[in-house]
């Protein structure tokens, strides 16, 4: 029995954005990254409708992470205290498409580092690698509003992806991203309505919607991934239906979420298989699931998981 081919077509599409500025565009990047552009759901429509290949950003933490399990720290053990070398390794050895500098170190409950530290890390990473950067705050509104504008300024003209802004805290970062010509990440807590609201709010400040990437607090496999999946799917369908407030490419934070769950890191767990494999598998499975919902940029951590997901992307987006 033949299976009928069902092809839906849509009027709208996901915005296509390019991160990173080369010398000719006022930056110093040796390569840029373009994502978005899909005119259909993943696996739907023709190959031309699939848009740009999703990309992987490997996390580089600005200060040595104290809570990473050994399996995760091991591949980075020689660079954990040096973000520039870390970024280099992530690009040259592990094949990241871009780097996400995550400023956990500026959080008052963590390393409590100051702005000069954050600026220094930004400058060093920019120097060490030629790919575009994602510059991601610590999640403490006060510290982010105080320090991230300085980080943004240190990367002025490089066309980075700066984040994140939320419904309750969006003005400072939106203004500085606009001034320094960066792209912006709008965040919502797994809530499609709030996601739209934040986009309207930043748009109201004059920030171009074509330079926004949306982020929904990601759920890992077994820990709410179905919510992430259905929200992203709904956003993709809204984008395809022509909703300009929902037509942004999507970023997911898979690395942090996957390595937070006990299945990924518990060493003494009879019957669960070797701990060396569990974490990378958990991370890869989470990433692949969210790619199918329509994620455009995936933040990841373990190099083995990155390799699996890259292989998947290359097979699906030819």
């Amino acid at each position: 029995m033949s299976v009928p081919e069902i092809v839906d077509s849509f009027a709208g599409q996901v915005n296509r954005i390019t991160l990173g500025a080369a010398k000719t565009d006022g930056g110093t990047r040796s390569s840029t990254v373009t994502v978005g552009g899909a005119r259909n759901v993943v696996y739907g429509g023709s190959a031309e409708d699939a848009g740009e290949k999703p990309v992987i950003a490997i996390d580089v933490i600005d200060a040595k992470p104290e809570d990473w399990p050994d399996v995760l720290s091991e591949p980075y053990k020689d660079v954990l205290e040096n973000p520039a070398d870390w970024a280099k390794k992530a690009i040259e050895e592990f094949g990241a498409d871009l780097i996400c500098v995550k400023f956990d170190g500026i959080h008052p409950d963590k390393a409590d580092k100051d702005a000069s530290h954050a600026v220094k890390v930004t400058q060093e990473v920019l120097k060490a690698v030629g790919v575009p950067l994602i510059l991601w705050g610590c999640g403490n509104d006060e510290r982010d509003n105080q320090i991230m504008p300085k980080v943004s300024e240190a990367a002025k003209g490089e066309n980075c992806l700066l984040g994140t802004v939320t419904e309750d805290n969006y003005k400072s970062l939106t203004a500085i991203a606009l001034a320094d010509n960066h792209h912006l990440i709008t965040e919502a807590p797994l809530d499609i309505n709030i996601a739209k609201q934040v986009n309207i709010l930043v748009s109201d400040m004059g920030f171009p919607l074509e330079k926004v990437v949306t982020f929904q607090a990601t759920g890992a496999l077994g820990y709410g991934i179905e919510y992430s999946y259905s929200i992203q799917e709904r956003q993709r369908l809204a984008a395809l239906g022509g909703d300009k407030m929902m037509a942004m490419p999507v970023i997911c934070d898979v690395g942090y979420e996957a390595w937070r769950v006990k299945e990924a890191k518990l060493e003494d767990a009879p019957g669960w298989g070797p701990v060396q494999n569990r974490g990378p598998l958990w991370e890869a499975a989470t990433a692949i699931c969210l790619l199918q919902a329509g994620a455009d940029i995936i933040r990841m951590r373990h190099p083995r998981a990155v390799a699996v997901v890259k292989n998947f992307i290359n097979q699906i987006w030819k």
Partner: protein
Amino acid sequence: MILIAERINGMFKDVKQAIAEKNKQVIQDLAKRQTQAGASYLDVNVGTAAADQQGTMQWLVETIQETCSIPLSLDSQKTDVIAAGLKVANTDNGIILNSSPLNKKTDEEVLEKYIEMANQAGPKASIIALTMDKNGVPQDIDTRVAIAAEIVQKAMEKGFDTQRLFIDPIILPVKVPGAQVQPANILTAMDQIRILAEPAPHITVGLSNVSQGAAERSLINRTFLAMAVSHGLDSAIADVFDQELMNVLATSEMLMNKQIYSDSYLKAYKPT
């Protein structure tokens, strides 16, 4: 919602006068303001005043296109007036031929001619087809739906994509004696028209007609709009300057889950 803005119509006094005086500014101002207000298309109707309908249609189209690139809806019951407009219209972003009945006593093949003209106007050209035939506007639900079905069938026979077809079930002024039963009839007809083809044809109405001659025009228009959206209306020829109407439209589409809710949804709403 595909909104076709109604104001460039020779039946309005200011437009009639602008046509008589060849005053481009009045037309261009209306074109710009309707575009900003959220129109997807601008309707262009020469009205009845001008002696040279074809020439007037061309003048209107050219005048609008000097300042706006928004697609147009060429509105006339005369094939040659639409054809004249098509000669000068930019159809790259789409165009609507507004409108054809299924057939006429004087022209059995009128719909075929519209389809032919639309095909020549490019892949984005659409047609509004009225659920009326040589016997006039039907009063009952079944005849309306039967005519719509024939229209869809003819389009399919000609290989004309049903997504380029707008069915207009013709809303009559509610104030006309005996016509008060029609709005409810039309809603029922819409439910059936929607399922005539897959993908479904668009359904449109000349919204302001429903309140013609009545007091409380805006209220009647927007109430019927909300009701019709809940029955699958996805296009309307309407007054996009009516802010209350636009708010009701945004809210209706949000309540029908066609637009994602957000606290500022009214601000975000832009018809597609």
